[in-house]
């Protein structure tokens, strides 16, 4: 058993690599392709004015709702500083997608003419409906049964899928009457017939959510002073309070991007700008959401399209294809080179690439399936570059080995010795690469990040496999009697101790000992 000490890591890494690869294949995980490889739309939006974090988050929510409306599989919307990066792979109607994400959302106050509450349970049917019609599957809160919404059915004058499909500008009809939905977790929970827009979010100063002494959550908007602010609000509030013909229900709807957020009843003739309170069945989350929406409405963020990219599916596929073939050719070329130079040890180096590849494939697939991390062409380049980094660790070790043997050490004792110094070099060099990758990932935008991530990932894997795989596997090779007596098979020089012996093979006719 003592003979096997130190080989545990070899067994472990091979088993882990094999198991994770099998798991990935069985689970059907595949790397998620970036849109430069599968086609799609990518947009970078930059806010025109200075904005705070909440506002950006609110804008992202709005953009996400809009993209969901065009029925895209996996849109990815991320923040990079104050920029919003939107990636919509495989979208069909690219022009509409571009148009939708750039529009500024408006917060509106509209008098409610009539409202129909909708029971979300009643509005959904558990039958799958006509398979020919597009359906949207939603999971209502935490319930385990998924329900299917039939978009052809309408409730309260609205199609049932309105919460995911959204409304067009004509349907929102700011200047006149409209029927607008109230949504909760993607489900239609209310339908409101509303009058023309009485006031927009620009009348607001700010808003916040409060926890009252009674334990109730409330939302307090603060209006600006003057006719554009509290004056305008009081004008419409007065109409609602008296339940006049323009506001027969006495409710004032707060609408953001065509969706009714809340429709509080007005219970006073007029208000002071900073003493308005919206109360109702809020919990902490809904209260804060409404306050954030109101704040966003006060200063709707306008975006400037920094960059838009539309990649056709064919060009993307061609690039992927070319990248893979080129990678393969490169791999074969370095494998031949390594094996020609280091023989069996070279083969081990190539197998090390195989272990790394299995791990890398599993990690990328897992991240693609769970975190939506896409593999881009830049990422593939990073991985191809890392082939060199990985093999370099082997080269450093093997050269060290050769040098030690040339200095009179036996192959066996040199194996351990050289690894210590070689690994110290490898760690220094790899850590420097990791520092670079980490900084690039943190400090840059766009494609550079993807590249940095994959370069960093494969460098970290190199550190792992150098220690867990390369060290024991070389040790194993140098224990073999067969290989030890034929050092040229290892690409190593003959041991000096045996220099008059058989190990001075015909392979090196010129290997006169020169020192």
């Amino acid at each position, binding site marked *: 058993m003592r003979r096997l000490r130190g080989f545990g890591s070899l067994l472990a890494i091979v088993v882990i690599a094999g198991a994770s690869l099998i798991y990935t294949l069985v689970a059907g995980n595949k790397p998620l392709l970036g849109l430069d490889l599968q086609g799609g739309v990518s947009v970078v939006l930059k806010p025109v004015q200075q904005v705070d974090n909440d506002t950006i988050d609110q804008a992202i929510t709005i953009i996400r709702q809009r993209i969901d409306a065009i029925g895209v599989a996996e849109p990815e919307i991320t923040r990079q500083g104050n920029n919003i990066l939107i990636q919509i792979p495989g979208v069909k109607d690219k022009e509409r997608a571009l*148009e939708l994400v750039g529009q500024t959302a408006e917060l509106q106050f509209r008098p409610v003419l009539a409202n129909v509450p909708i029971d979300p349970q009643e509005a959904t049917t558990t039958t799958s409906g006509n398979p020919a019609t597009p359906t949207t599957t939603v999971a209502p809160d935490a319930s385990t049964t998924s329900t299917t919404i039939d978009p052809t059915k309408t409730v309260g004058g609205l199609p049932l899928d309105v919460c995911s499909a959204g409304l067009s500008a004509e349907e929102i009809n700011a200047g006149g009457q409209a029927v607008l939905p109230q949504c909760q977790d993607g489900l239609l929970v209310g339908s409101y017939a509303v009058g023309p827009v009485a006031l927009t979010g620009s009348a607001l100063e700010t808003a916040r959510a409060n926890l009252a002494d009674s334990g109730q959550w409330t939302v307090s908007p603060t209006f600006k002073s003057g006719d554009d602010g509290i004056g305008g609000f009081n004008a419409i509030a007065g109409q609602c309070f008296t339940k006049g013909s323009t506001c027969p229900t006495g409710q004032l709807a707060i609408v953001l991007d065509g969706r009714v957020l809340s429709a509080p009843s007005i219970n006073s003739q007029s208000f002071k700008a900073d003493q308005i309170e919206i109360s109702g069945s809020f919990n902490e989350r809904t209260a804060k959401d409404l306050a954030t929406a109101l704040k966003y409405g006060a200063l709707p963020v306008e975006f400037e399209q920094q960059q838009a990219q539309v990649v056709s599916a064919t060009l993307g596929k061609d690039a992927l294809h070319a990248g893979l073939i*080129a990678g393969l050719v490169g791999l074969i070329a370095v494998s031949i080179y390594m094996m020609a130079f280091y023989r069996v040890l070279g083969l081990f180096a190539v197998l090390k690439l195989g272990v790394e590849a299995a791990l890398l494939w599993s990690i990328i697939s897992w991240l693609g399936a769970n975190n939506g991390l896409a593999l881009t062409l830049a990422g593939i380049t990073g991985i191809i570059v890392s082939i060199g980094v990985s093999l370099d660790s082997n080269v450093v070790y093997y050269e060290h080995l050769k040098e030690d043997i040339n200095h009179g050490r036996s192959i066996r004792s040199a194996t351990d010795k050289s690894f210590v110094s070689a690994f110290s070099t490898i760690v220094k060099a790899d850590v420097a690469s990791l520092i670079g990758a980490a900084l690039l990932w943190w400090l840059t935008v766009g494609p*550079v990040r993807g590249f940095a991530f994959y370069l960093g990932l494969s460098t970290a894997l190199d550190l792992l496999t150098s220690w867990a795989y390369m060290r024991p596997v070389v040790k194993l090779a140098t224990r073999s009697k067969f290989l030890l007596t034929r050092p040229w098979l290892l690409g190593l020089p003959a041991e000096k101790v045996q220099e008059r012996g058989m190990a001075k093979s015909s392979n090196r006719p*010129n290997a006169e000992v020169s*020192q």
Partner: protein
Amino acid sequence: MSKLGRLNRGETNIDFLKWWKIGLAVSALLVVVSLGSLLTRGLNLGIDFKGGVSWEVSAPDVTVDETRAALDSVGEGSAKIQIVGTDIIRVQGPESTPEHTIAVTKTLAELANTDPSNVSFSTVGASWGGDVTKSAIRALIFFFIAILIYLSFRLELRMAVAALVAVFHDVLISVGAYSVFQFEVTPGTVIAFLTILGYSIYDTIVVDDKILENERLVGQSGRLTYGQMTSLSMNQVLLRSINTTVVSLLPVIALLVVGAGIMGAVTLEEFSIALTVGLLAGAYSSIFVAAPILVWLKEHQSKFKVIRERLQSQGVDVTHASARVDLLGVDAGSPAISAGSTKTSRDSADGSAPMAAPTGVIPPRPRKNQRKR
């Protein structure tokens, strides 16, 4: 064959002290050419840096002139039209309205006899490229600082400085090559330049690590100048440097030749040109830039200055690499130390360096980390 054999055993005796002079002269020339070209010709910046719209469509059998004629009708007759890869038409115009972009897309689709969804386009605001460049430069500055700290800590300050000078040299020459040949600079190119940084540092660290190891062994024993010791270290790691460069270059050349050249993937071309230039520069600079700068810095250090002056006063030729010294043998207590031999020719050195010949005894390594057997 015998030279290759010596290379294989790390037993070459190339006089790097001599080659460094040539190397530095070549580097200086390249840097001057790069700077001159950057100042006079500048860089050929892609639309990602200037702002504008770029369309790409795969259109075999369509010529640039036909494209220009077709685009004239939508007012893009003056756009820059190229055929990239094998059959991809690329059109680049100034920033415009979304409607105009769509109109050009449709025209190109008609021309290529395909569906508009097969036309790729990208519009870039003028400030985007600035943002990308700014963030890249910021990353670069932090990278330099972090690496300086890390290398000072793991190796030593002078090595860190020399490594950074080498990296700077590599980036300058790579960017210079883009200016001289007027290759288009895209975000892909920026990525490639950033890779060069990492690679160049990596290579230099491996070389420096060897120098450091030898410095502990012999640098303080006073038989070699720092320069001679470094030259010796270079000889020892030469094969590694060559092999590393080959294994790094092979995949990148595959990208360039197979991916970009034969299969016509444009983005791959952008990456691989910069990477090829950078990898070559990186391998070269770790030997011919980082090392001589390190030597220059070190020989101003009093300890090594003293050694050099003493050797000089003993009539030892310090301007050339010394005959090969078996460093391990020195420590093993071999009596025949004559590293200061004035023999400088490579051939005589190789055969007759009176160094500790292997005696069949494993010399004890001066390291402490010996495992119990």
